[in-house]
């Protein structure tokens, strides 16, 4: 069965691009445009992994991450942010990995493969 990934990002183009890239990798991809939608979809869609942007309107990614960890203790989360500065924020420790966005998604895809293979 295909693994399901929830992509959380407020930028429409990034969501689409990630959906395309990860679908090509053989994953089932669902999308959320903000923190509230992400938390709802985690309950509804039961993804195997979440990629999470930090800078989003409304609730930011680190706050969403804290809420995820309270309820979905073992759900893998990869922070995928354009900014490396948040890496030193202690809240980011609760993520499995931190990937700085670039035009090349190889690092992200590699981390996703690693994490999902450990879960098998």
């Amino acid at each position: 069965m295909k693994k399901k990934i929830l992509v959380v990002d407020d930028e429409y183009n990034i969501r689409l691009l990630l959906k395309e890239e990860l679908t090509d990798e053989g994953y089932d991809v669902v999308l959320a445009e903000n923190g509230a939608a992400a938390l709802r979809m985690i309950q509804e869609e039961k993804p195997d992994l979440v990629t999470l942007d930090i800078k989003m309107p409304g609730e930011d990614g680190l706050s969403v991450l804290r809420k995820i960890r309270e309820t979905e203790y073992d759900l893998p989360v990869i922070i995928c942010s354009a900014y490396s500065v948040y890496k030193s924020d202690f809240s980011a420790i609760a993520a499995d990995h931190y990937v700085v966005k670039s035009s090349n998604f190889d690092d992200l895809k590699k981390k996703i493969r690693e994490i999902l293979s450990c879960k098998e």
Partner: protein
Amino acid sequence: MSSSDYSAGSGMSALDEEASQRIAQTGKADIIIGIPSYNNADSIGQVIKAAELGLAKYFPRFKGIILISEGGDIERTRAAVDALHDKQYFENAFVSRPSSDTEIFVTKYRGASGKGTAIKAIFEAGRSLNVKAGCMLDSDLRSISPEWIELLISPVLLKDFGFVTPYYSRHKYDGTITNMIAYPVTWALYGRRVRQPIGGDFGFSLQLMESLLAKDVWGTDIARFGIDIWMTTVAICEKFKICQSFLGAKIHDDKDPGKDLSPMFTQVVGTIFSLMDIYSDTWLRVKGSRPTAIFGFESEVAPKPLNVDVDNLISKFQTGVETYMPVWRQVLEPENCDKLREVARLDSLHFELPIELWIKCLYDFAFAYAKLMDGLSAKEIIEALVPIYYAKIASFVSKTQNLDSHQAEEAINQQCVAFEKLKPYLINRWSSE
């Protein structure tokens, strides 16, 4: 220790008759705050004040008790408690004094002398009182605030966590046993990234307390300094929900690791190695590593700087090469032994113990300790590891002296990743038995 002994349950209570009676009279409480102590009368008052204020400020509707489990001079500790009788600190901190004061018990624990037995007495009291949650505080803390109580208790009471480990802001050279051994081994073997697995301040649920009390380890080295890493490892391996709480700076009596390697090293590292044997079925199956939830509010704090005498550490390593080579030849893989000889020839300017070599040596020692190979005693094995540990600290200090705390933290995390990558080396050794 055989696995049947391990789960056989403990014998004699660590609470004496008088303490048991007082707890029975109290009947029921919601929260227990335990303070293991050994002649800390000079500093314990501050910890008790923070505990009382924390309970009153953050848990006014809950019944809390404070239990000081003393291993030394109980009269001096009682005097330190009595000195707090005017409770002036409530007014000074703008915290409403509760209608009835929190009960503060001071008891001299029974059993093997050490922190573990002190903790056992507190757990037994917590179980008798059927508390919902509890926390443990070191008695020599100077940086504690009432907020610590909220941060250690709330995840258990409000969010169903079983174990709350501390997350401190520490100087990059403080906590070397944690940074070089306990943190990376917990990360790599048990797959859980817990930054302070031997932090002395932690929160716990009733269920975890009961599970820990049911293990028969209380007469062993674990009942001394090994207690903290044992609790963390049990919590991970027995699937308790674990989180971390950011507590700010930890100010305590820090020491240069090259000048004062207390029995703590033997007991902590010995416990880590023993646990690898007990929980081998678990860690051999674990793949990768997972982060741990974190609560609290991060503030920039500058921990007290700690100076390390690198030349002294290198010198001790170089002396140790000759002294311990016969043991190393028995414990280490031959190529690791040869590489250590090469490292010993480096001068202090170029001194470096490669991370891969350190990890392989540590894994070799863990294997030798767990299997007590070639007739070596546990004590002989740990003693022979010390010079290599000194070399590792010297190497780390030299490499990170120009790094700020965030960069040093990143370097420590990179080491953990290296431990995880080299885990197959340990698995191969373990499986070759």
